[in-house]
């Protein structure tokens, strides 16, 4: 059982910010667990057709998990970096589940239905995920930048802080990554 004490989460975030990969790996299941728990809880409270925005979910997870004594925006950026990874997995799993459900005739999964994508269809997301996987193999840093920007909503400056690179480098890599993904998706479609 991974601890979810706010002070512990903050400590792990600080360590992750300093490059401790183990701390980062410890955070992932905590954030995953919290996001799913929140989604499940929230959906119990709402009308059936309500959809829960991923953004709202991540912000709520942050509020619940992170101790805000002496907060550091870089820790917050790292939290969202972890959340980006987790959210990517959740949403891709969700998109795959929806695809399977379509094939079976409309069966859906109530919990995962809580996670919705703004203006992104499941098929589009899966195509992006597939291309992103290829890009990450070729250029792990570009793959990570896309993950942070697209799945985590981090700004250029925040990505730079998380990856310990300069802002101009992030901009340059982000532009090429988008161009490469766009080209790949164009070929695919």
């Amino acid at each position: 059982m991974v601890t979810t004490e706010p002070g512990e989460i903050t400590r792990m975030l600080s360590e992750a910010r300093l490059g401790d990969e183990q701390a980062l790996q410890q955070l992932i299941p905590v954030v995953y667990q919290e996001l799913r728990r929140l989604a499940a809880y929230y959906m119990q409270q709402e009308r059936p057709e309500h959809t829960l925005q991923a953004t709202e979910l991540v912000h709520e997870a942050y509020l619940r998990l992170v101790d805000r004594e002496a907060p550091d925006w870089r820790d917050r950026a790292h939290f969202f970096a972890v959340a980006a990874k987790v959210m990517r997995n959740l949403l891709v799993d969700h998109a795959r589940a929806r695809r399977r459900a379509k094939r079976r005739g409309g069966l859906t999964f109530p919990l995962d239905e809580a996670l919705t994508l703004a203006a992104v269809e499941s098929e589009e997301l899966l195509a992006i995920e597939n291309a992103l996987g290829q890009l990450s193999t070729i250029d792990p840093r570009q793959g990570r930048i896309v993950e942070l920007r697209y799945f985590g909503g981090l700004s250029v400056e925040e990505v730079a802080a998380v990856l310990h690179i300069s802002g101009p480098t992030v901009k340059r890599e982000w532009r090429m990554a988008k161009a490469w993904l766009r080209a790949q998706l164009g070929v695919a479609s």
Partner: protein
Amino acid sequence: MTNPRWERLKEVFAEAVEKEGEERERFLSAACAGDPGLLEEVQALLAGDEQADGFLSNPVVSLRGGEASPPLFAPGQIIAGRFRTRRFIGRGGMGEVYEAEDLVLAEKVALKTIRPISAAGHGIEHLKQEIHAARRVTHPNVCRTFDIAEHGDPPVTLATAAPARGGGSDVAPRSPSLFSPPAPPFPDAKAAYRLQIGIFPDPSQLIYPIFTRLLQSNCLSFTEFPPRPQQGQMTSLHRTSHSCALSSLCFLPDIPGAPPRIKRHRAMGLVPRAQGA
């Protein structure tokens, strides 16, 4: 792992994408001379770049959560059968704040919506505690929370509050005091008190240097930085008028013998009125 060919592709693309027309063509001819495969890859990337406008521009999760969405209520809208909205003031971690008119009492109030996910669980209980706590503090610069109401179906939870007088100029543009005219600068302006409350949408809005801790019922305690032996507390509604809150905070010693959180809760309950101004 560095792939030399990929690195070369990156170099050529980075330079080519900054050029246009014939200049780009000349550059590509020179950079990819004798390597038609490289030229083809760069051209594919450049074509992708031209089509990438808006591509992936809407993050799945945004740090600036909900910022782009319009306010929940329009100006002039009647809320909960009693309040007429005048203007949207701002948006925070818990929800939105509006200037509104209380049609029954014919006075200006602040309306604070509570995001559904914040209202779920203990959210409403915390809000009630906040109201109880705020009612104990009396100061013209304190934005007092009056009541809770609901509007619409499904209901939007609202908190109504009295107007605060306003705050210092440094934070006012981002965190507007509820209503004008602004209050005089808070007493310790030279100390450059700044405050971070909850989550701000932009790291540049992090306000230092006071350490804060979000306590139960959305009350914050703080320790001045550089540390001095004083602490205080405030309620979260003051996030709409930070410096007002600072001007009205009570500086109290901890209650001996109690754990920190308990001490601060008890301290809050013991505060008869603000003494900071």
